[in-house]
Each structure stands twice: as C-alpha cells, then as structure tokens.
C-alpha cells in the first residue's frame, strides 16, 4: 500500500501539475484574449469617435444641401422670372420684327422709287451731257466761224491798208506833179482845185490809217503791268509838239496814283485826251488844263479838264463813236478816231470812260482803271 498510494499521489500530482499548466496556459490565453478584447474595445471606441465625426460631417453636409436647395429655389425663381422676361422680350422682338419687316418693305418701295428717280436723273444727265456736247460743238463751230470772220477781217484791213492806199497815193502824187510841172496850164481856180484834190487824198490816207490803227487795237494783246502814272503823263506832255505861234495852255497836275494796265495803250489814252484838251483850248487865251485823279471803291478815276470850246451834251452819245465829230473840220481838224480809240483801250482794261461838258466853257474827260 504505500507505494500504491504514492504512485497514486504522484499520478495525482502529475495530474495537478498538468492541470496547473493547463490553467496557466488558459490564463495566458485569457490574458491574450483580454488584450485582444481590450484592443478591440479601443478600436470600437475609435470607430465610435470616427462615427461621431462622420455623423457631424453628414449633419453639416445635410445642412449644406438644405442651404443649396434653398438657393436653388431662389435661383429657380429667378430663372423663371428671367424666362418670363425673355418671353416678353421675344414678344416685343416679334413686334419689332414685324415693324422692321414693314419698314423694310417701305424701304424697298423707296429704293425702287429712288432707282426710278435715279434713272430719270441719269437720263436727264445724259440729256444735259448731250446738250453740253452739242453746245460745245456749237462753240467750236462758232469759234471757227469767228476765227474765219476774224481772218477775213484781217485780210480786209490788210486789203484796205494795201489796196486803197495805193490809188490814193497815185491820185495825190499825180496831182502834185500837175501842180508842180504844169502850174502855168492852170488858172488860179484850177490850182486851188488841184490843192483840194491833194489835201482830200491826204485826208483819206489819214482816215484809212486811223481806221486800221483802231481795228488793230481790238486784236492787240493787253500786257498788264504797274504803271507809274505821273511819270507817264509827264512824258506825254513833254512829247507834245507846239507850234511857235500856238496858244500854249498852262498845265495843272499833282501826283497821280499808279494803276495796272498796258503802258503803251494807256499812254495812247493820255496822248489822245491831252492833245484833244490842247486842241479845243486853242481859241482861249491864258487858259489851263487840269490833270488829276481820285479813287472810288477799287478803281482809280483819272481826268483831263480843259476850259476850251466844249461840246453840246445833247450829242454825247456820238462822242466816242468811230469817225464821229462834234466840230467841223474848219473849226478843229481831226478824223474823229481819237476818242473811239480812248474808249476801246479803256474798255479793254475793264474800265469806263465818260465826259462832262458845257459849250464854250470846257470839257472834262474821265477814265477809270483798276488800282
């Protein structure tokens, strides 16, 4: 017995140790499991915390969505309003469109009318152009006619100059021969008649020369320059030839303003006016001739005034005519071309010539030139 008991005890001991070990291992496992549970718990707590955060986030998002929804509602309303506005606008546009379509139609009508008017204008223009062309053609034709007439006139004056002068020269020359070489064949009356033929043929020569000089004036080119008038008139006065026994008038003249014109032609005007003044003063003793000028607007008016024979203003319209004379040849000699030349020259300078006179008291002749 004892041995059995011990064995049994040993076996029991061993059992207990084994059981102890089992228990220890179980405890160790429990510790591990406990740790695991602890960890899991921790995890769950973390997860719960995360869920709380996520929940908060969701709540926030929800709120946001609600806000957004409210905004969308407002925006929607706004859009609805805009839509309405657009519809109104579209309606207005339709009306405006109709208006425009109407206006367009009107414009088309107007355009058509304009096109017709344009065509009419063009036709009128064509007519005018045609008329113009015709007119130009007429001008060309007329110019050619005038030129040919002018040429005819020129050849006429050449003929007058050449052909008429020759026979007059022969009449004059032969009569002179009769008078010189056959004087004894004629009685006093006969010699007188020969003298009359001589002086008449001479006179006719002068008339022809004057007429030609006058016709030449119309063709002469007017060369305009500044004329020193005082000097020019003094020159004319110095060139005047007086006979010894002639009644020489006194001249009164101040400084004359200058003018623009053709110097040689204006000189001829002064020559004619001054020599006329001298001629018609011939029968007055101690007489004078006044030469002066005044300005009027943009013109200068020059004058030559004498206290001589004068003329009757009743015949004024004949004064400047070619070969028109208001005095007889016996009273005052002349061909009657001088004042016609004066008028032609002044007119070619776009000026005017006029005169005032009283019989036996004198005359004053005026002419105007551009300053």
């Amino acid at each position, binding site marked *: 017995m004892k041995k059995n008991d011990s064995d049994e005890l040993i076996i029991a001991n061993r059992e207990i140790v084994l059981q102890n070990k089992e228990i220890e291992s179980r405890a160790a496992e429990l510790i591990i499991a406990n740790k695991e549970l602890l960890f899991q718990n921790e995890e769950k707590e973390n997860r719960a915390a995360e869920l709380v955060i996520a929940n908060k986030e969701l709540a926030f998002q929800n709120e946001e969505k609600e806000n957004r929804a409210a905004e969308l509602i407002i925006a929607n309303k706004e859009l609805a309003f805009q839509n309405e506005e657009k519809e109104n606008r579209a309606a207005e546009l339709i009306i405006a469109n109709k208006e425009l379509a109407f206006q367009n139609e009107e414009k088309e009508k107007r355009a058509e009318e304009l096109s017709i008017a344009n065509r009419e204008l063009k036709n009128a223009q064509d007519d005018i152009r045609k008329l113009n062309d015709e007119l130009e053609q007429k001008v060309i034709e007329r110019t050619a006619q005038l030129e040919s007439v002018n040429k005819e006139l020129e050849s006429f004056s050449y003929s007058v100059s050449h052909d008429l002068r020759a026979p007059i020269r022969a009449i004059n020359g032969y009569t*002179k021969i009769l008078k010189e070489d056959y004087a004894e064949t004629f009685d006093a009356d006969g010699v007188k008649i020969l003298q009359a033929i001589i002086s008449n043929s001479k006179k006719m*020569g002068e008339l*022809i020369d004057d007429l030609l000089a006058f016709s030449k004036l119309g063709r002469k080119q007017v060369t305009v320059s500044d004329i020193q008038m005082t000097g020019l008139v003094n020159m004319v006065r110095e060139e005047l030839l007086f006979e010894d026994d002639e009644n020489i008038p006194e001249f009164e003249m101040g400084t004359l303003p200058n003018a623009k014109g053709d110097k040689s032609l204006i000189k001829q005007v002064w020559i004619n006016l001054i020599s006329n003044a001298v001629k018609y003063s011939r029968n007055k003793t101690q007489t004078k001739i006044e030469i002066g000028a005044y300005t009027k607007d943009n013109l200068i008016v020059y004058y030559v005034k004498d206290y001589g024979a004068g003329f009757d203003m009743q015949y004024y319209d004949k004064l400047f005519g070619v070969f028109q004379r208001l005095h007889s040849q016996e009273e005052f000699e002349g061909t009657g071309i001088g004042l016609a030349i004066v008028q032609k020259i002044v007119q070619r300078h776009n000026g005017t010539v006029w005169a005032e006179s009283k019989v036996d008291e004198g005359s004053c002749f005026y002419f105007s030139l551009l300053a």
Partner: protein
Amino acid sequence: MSYHNVEILFVEDSTDDAALTIRALKKSGFTHKLYHVINGAEALDFIYCKGAYADRSDKEFPKLILLDLKMPKVSGLQVLEKLKADQHLKSIPIVMLTSSNEGPDIEKCFALGANSYIVKPVDSDNFFNAVKEIGLYWMVLSQPAH
C-alpha cells in the same frame, strides 16, 4: 532801157508807184543808173542773168535793191528770202517798199534779213521825202560791205 551797169534795181508792179518813185529820185538829183522790173520773177531773172537777161554780166550786181512787197507771181518776200539766203548776194542792201503798215509783214521782212522797210506814204510830199532819204542813205552814206 539798157540793163547793163545797173546801180539800183527797182522791183515794183504798180506803174503809178513806179512812175512816182522814179520821178522822186530824179527830182532829188539821183543820177545813179536805175532799172525797173515789174515783178519778182523778172527781178530774179535779172539778178541771176537768166531769161531776157541771159547776156547780162553776172559780175555786175546792183548796189541797192528797192523791192515792193506785194507783187503777182513771185512776191517781194520770196525774192528777199532767195537773195538773203545766197552767200554771194546777201550783202546787197534790200529796202522793202510797201503800202502795208501791218505788223506781221514788217516782222517777216526783218526776220528774212531786209535792211530797211518803208511804208509808202499817201501824201506825195512825204513819199518824195522817203524815197529821197532811202536813196541818200543807201547810195551815199552807207558803206558797202565789199
């Protein structure tokens, strides 16, 4: 009238002007030998010793030519042009005589080399004086070129 040793050649188609001019020269005491031809063609025949003047000596040139401007056939202008273009003849003084005092004629004559230009005056006193002066100037006072 002999056409030898002629000193003044007078070209004039008008019988009247010719008679008056010749008389004026004679009255003024000109004794120079003057020969009168009646147109330009005859004047050229005379100068160039042709036609009726074939036997004239071509060494004898007149000392002065009085030349009327307007003549039938060959005009004074044509004669003037021909003579003044001739190297041997251009020194002979030529005085143009004319009834015309128209500008273009005068210009043409001087352009062609005329030595003087006289417009024949109507008045016989002036005419005689003019002719006398031409003769005096060109035959007595003016020195010949050769």
